[in-house]
């Protein structure tokens, strides 16, 4: 079995739980910073350790597109 790191878990009622702290993630303000640009975004955050959950569709969608624009790809 590959040794996969898990940072969060998903409860049956779709609540995200921080794997390290064992508490529910709550919506909070995060900032993406890349190549001198900052993008304030609202995301699920662990209130104790500050772990930020970035949904896959956001990472592979908007964030990837912004990255391509900034890198002129």
């Amino acid at each position, binding site marked *: 079995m590959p040794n996969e790191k898990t940072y969060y878990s998903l409860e049956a009622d779709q609540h995200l739980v921080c794997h390290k702290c064992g508490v529910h993630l709550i*919506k909070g303000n995060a900032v*993406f910073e890349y190549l001198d*640009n900052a*993008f*304030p*975004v*609202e*995301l*699920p955050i662990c209130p104790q350790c500050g772990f930020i959950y970035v*949904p896959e*569709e*956001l990472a592979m*969608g*908007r*964030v990837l*597109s*912004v990255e*391509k*624009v900034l890198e*002129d*790809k």
Partner: protein
Amino acid sequence: MSVRLYPAESVCPVCLKKIKTAITVGNDGFIHMEKACPKHGFFDTLIWEGDVISYLSWGDEDVEGNAPKTAIPAEKGCPHDCGLCTSHQSEGCCVLLELTKRCNLNCPVCFASAGNGTDLPLDEIVRQYDWLMAHGGPYNIQLSGGEPTMRDDLDEIIRLGRERGFTYFQLNTNGLRIAEEENYASRLKEMGVSCVFLQFDGCRDEIYTALRGKELFETKCQAIDACAKADLPVVLVPVIAPDINEDDIGEIIQFALQRHPHVRGVHFQPLSYFGRCEVPARELAEKCCESAQTQWRITIPRMLKKIEEQTNGLLKAYDFHGGGAESPYCSFHAAVRVQSDGSLKILKKRSRSCCCPQPSSEAMNFVSQQWGNEDPDFPETESDVSSLDLFLKQAINDTFTISGMLFQDAWNLDLKRLRRCYICEADSERGMVPFCAYNLTDTNGKALYRK
């Protein structure tokens, strides 16, 4: 003596039968297509005004395309099975609906049937929409003709398309009605036209007299202003003809840049010899007649050289690259970002990181976002991501494209290129027919598919 590079497939310009063909390096050092018909003789056509290294490197990233989602069996062989057939290597991206054969111009260089013709009936348009949706749709729709604005039911045509799932409607127009009829541009916007693909051959009336039969520059400016007022994106589409407007390319680009962002880009179409475009056929056909070839043929390197010379180096030939979804030898493309201080930044070529062709869907999205100014289609999210959305919208708005497509005719038709064609004509009998097959005519002007 020419030097043979590799074998290719083409047709005889006289009988359109498939004949033995080779890509060669000619005595002039440029790339040619040489072919021989047992009945009609030998044909030598200039296809690349550059050396062999520049020719081969332009196609560096060329790979096999992706097959259409549905296809008819290939029986007679290209280009005689178009519809699309199992030999085709593109899913399709843009589809032209020829809504009418009527036109308010009678251009000497038109490929389409135009004049006092008939309209495509609404029920036939619906059948074409339904066929397209059942065969891989939705595609980006090009409302074409004739002159599509001769019809008074464009709103109904777009509504019927939207009902069936099509979202991008490009209006291929000469702009006369937009210029002359008050509020027509606003009505087009309300109808759901995504982008006006405006025939625009230069900033001098002499050009329009030669190519369109009358002085039109002022009319074109009025059409562009009307579209800007209506917030309707415009792409300028110049036909470039030898000895007529080859030296106007830089001025066209500057004219368009001054009207960015409502002018989204320039899309050049160097003259091809099909349809109503009268060919200096004998001159083109004569072997060893290199002066005639150079006089009448505009190839990709020649276009890029002219762009570099006439924009005073603002755009360099190496800023351009070939198409990804279609054959790279069919098109050229560059993009610039107009920065907040008005200066331009060349956007580098997006290199493909794997051996896959750019899918047609990516080309479709590019067209609708870049020319139609449409927002990117991302999934809904519960979180507030407006900063990312705003940035992306601004980035699309700030981008200006300079591109061109070299349509093929019976002289330079390369069946490998044709199989990668992603711009199709909707045909009530055959479905989707690649543009350059649909408009292919022999030396007597007889069409292979167009009726």
